């Protein structure tokens, strides 16, 4: 059961028109590809994706599950959205409620275990090892965890794990925590136990299912020490992407390939004057300018004289001649006009771009985000830290 209903509010305009799990990552993937690839490599072929926020992007991507070999006769991938069941009709109120509303799916399965995953994490994990651990512990629930540094602890559910491998305490996003281990939001349940335990009032997996069980010592822990990134905010997304340039193993491991829905695009092409280094570049890109420390998704065009640095550019965006893009995330199909400057420090005396509707200043630390299909006119400066909503037309004539 892949939980994919989060709104991803902290991802700003990147989730304005898409589910968080459908967010592009790593040059050609979407975040959910990692979860789905882990499932099929681990031999899980019966997969439900529980979606409710902007599901179209997710449905378009998954469709029948062909790229993951999940278009199967008797199993495969199903997208489950909240539906009307007679008198009961409501949105998924929480993670536990999403499971409860689909209890019939769990009941009709003949598996003896239910693996509950978050669709918004980037990692490579062989769930079979967790299953082996779960069976050896003999507890009805196992939680996967990983050690995180003290500064990170406020972002996660922190757990304490006893010497015998039992989870004995759980703090959800504590301001500070003595516990070293973060729950990865990956749970393995005995199916019969889960069916008995799910109730309409148990809305949240952590608060209403896991926490009450701790005192009865029925929750086992499973330590995972591989690559794992949680994509919660613009900053964590940006940092995880930049770290990928240093450590590419999650996408380059030939024994654990990440499958995705591929585009039908020609090889990336580079002009005589192109300068490219320290970057990940997908097929269909055309590079005539300079690209450094960046990730380009399929079909991106970088015109002659343009410079893209420390930025992430989604599919089919185009950067015009002599434009400059730095420390930015540029969404799909954005068009940046010739000579425009994105993510540079604003000069005094420039017209106030924030007077345009659809452009906001962020509290963030200097990552500029331009939403899907926005148009930045030639010569316009979008200062560092600005957020441009999807489809906004940024043209200085509108404010002069």
């Amino acid at each position: 059961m892949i939980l994919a209903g989060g709104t991803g509010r902290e991802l700003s305009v990147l989730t304005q028109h898409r589910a968080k799990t459908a967010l592009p990552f790593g040059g050609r993937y979407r975040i959910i590809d990692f979860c789905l690839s882990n499932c099929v490599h681990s031999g899980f072929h019966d997969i439900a994706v529980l979606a409710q926020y902007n599901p179209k992007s997710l449905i378009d991507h998954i469709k029948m599950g062909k790229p993951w070999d999940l278009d199967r006769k008797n199993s495969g991938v199903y997208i489950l959205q909240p539906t009307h069941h007679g008198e009961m009709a409501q949105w998924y109120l929480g993670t536990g409620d999403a499971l409860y509303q689909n209890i019939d799916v769990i009941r009709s399965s003949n598996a003896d275990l239910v693996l509950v995953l978050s669709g918004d994490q980037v990692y490579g994990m062989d769930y079979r090892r967790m299953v082996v651990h779960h069976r050896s512990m003999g507890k009805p629930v196992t939680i996967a965890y990983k050690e995180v540094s003290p500064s990170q602890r406020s972002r996660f559910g922190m757990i304490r794990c006893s010497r015998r491998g039992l989870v004995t305490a759980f703090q959800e996003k504590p301001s500070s925590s003595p516990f070293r281990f973060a729950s990865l939001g990956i749970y393995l349940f005995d199916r019969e136990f889960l069916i008995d335990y799910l109730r309409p009032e148990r809305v949240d997996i952590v608060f209403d299912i896991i926490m009450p069980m701790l005192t009865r010592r029925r929750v086992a822990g499973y330590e995972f020490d591989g690559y794992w990134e949680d994509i919660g905010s613009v900053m964590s997304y940006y940092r995880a992407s930049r770290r990928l340039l240093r450590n590419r193993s999650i996408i380059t491991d030939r024994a654990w390939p990440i499958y995705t829905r591929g585009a039908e695009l020609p090889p990336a092409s580079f002009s005589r004057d192109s300068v490219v280094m320290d970057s990940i570049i997908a097929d269909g890109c055309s590079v005539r300018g300079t690209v450094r420390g960046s990730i380009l998704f399929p079909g991106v065009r970088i015109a002659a004289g343009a410079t893209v640095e420390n930025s992430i550019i989604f599919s089919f965006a185009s950067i015009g001649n002599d434009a400059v893009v730095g420390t930015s995330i540029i969404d799909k199909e954005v068009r940046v006009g010739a000579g425009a400057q994105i993510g540079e420090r604003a000069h005094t005396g420039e017209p106030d771009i924030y007077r345009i509707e659809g452009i906001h200043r962020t509290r963030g630390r200097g990552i500029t985000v331009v939403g899907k299909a926005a148009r930045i006119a030639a010569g316009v400066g979008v200062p560092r830290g600005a957020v441009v909503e999807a489809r906004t037309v940024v043209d200085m004539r509108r404010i002069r």
Partner: protein
Amino acid sequence: MSNPVAFILAGGVGKRLSLLTRFRAKPAVPFAGRYRIIDFTLTNCFRSGIDDVFILTQYIARSLIRHIGIGKPWDLDRRKGGVHILHPRLGFQAADWYQGTADAIFQNVPVLEELDSEHILILSGDHVYHMDYREFMQFHLASGKPASVAAVTVPRSMCSEFGIVTAERDGTISRFEEKPKQSESNLASMGIYIFEKEFLLRTLKKLHTRFENLDFGRHVFPHLVSRRHVAAYRFPGYWLDIGTLKGYYRASLDLLSTRPRLRFRHDGIPVLTVPDDSPPLVVTKTGRIARSLVCNGCVIEGEVVSSIVSPNVTIKRGAVVENSIIFHDCVIESGARVRNAIIDKMVTVGRNTSVGFGDQSVPNQLQPLYLDFGITLIGIKTRIPAGVRIGTNCLVCGSPADDSMHQHDMGDGESAIAESITL
């Protein structure tokens, strides 16, 4: 009007492509990085809404058949129709190896007879072009002839390589000369034909008793043209018949020009091929790419200039690749220099080795007719050790077990072919 059924001739040996076709059929030769030559024809079938595609194979078809699979990339995985491989076979009705292009069709007469379609489109798996066969079909129907040939104008100097047709104003072909030394016309048959099915069956049954190795260009068309049964459809687009190694190399490098004659998209439809699960291309801090096409899965730590690099190639730090075509899964070790070379799949070029530097005027001693234009060709899975120098117009091919055979430098025009491999 029913849709025509396509028959793709994909059995040719392609000997003039030297080592590239030693272990694979010509239509399966990689082209433009991630494609194989037959992708262009199969994409045209998709473009033209053709529901039934028969592929006639003969020469080493394994990689071709694996590539085509059930035809999914071209939407040919159908309940009804779809893609079918017709390989020569022994059977109840006497059959044999295909002896010629028309003989290959003749040996499949029972297949043709079962088809509902009234028209047969005959294609070649060796061509690179974008064409909507529906336009050709409309021309064919309007012409009122039982057979049509698609044709392009070619430079007069190249007429001796093609079937040359002379067409009257209404399109009727009045002359058909196979590879003429001299000709009035420079309209070349593309080897792409539409026939009315019943007419084709009658013609093949009549002619096969007269000619042992029945060929469209040499036998069928001269016969039909003399009876004024054939019309010529002038195809206005770019068309490439990959015949020779030189042609292959030139056509590949033309893709790097500022205005390449071949586009990867035509009428909004991209070239369709088998999906590729490789990660995106990675260029490291030491990498440099200029004027090149580079595919997914490559890791570029060295320098790539004016080259075409297929998926999953690693070019290590300090290595330089120039004016070359590198197929899938190769490794160019650090400090190696590769220039004017075609390197087949899964080749390793050792550290500090140089390939392709030398006097271009010395033709290859083994295959002087195919390899005399200043490139070096390395065959599939060859491992070239560290620190050797391999000149130009060289042929190198060996399995890993045969490493010892090219431990030393090779002069221009020399060859090193493992004993187990006959050319």
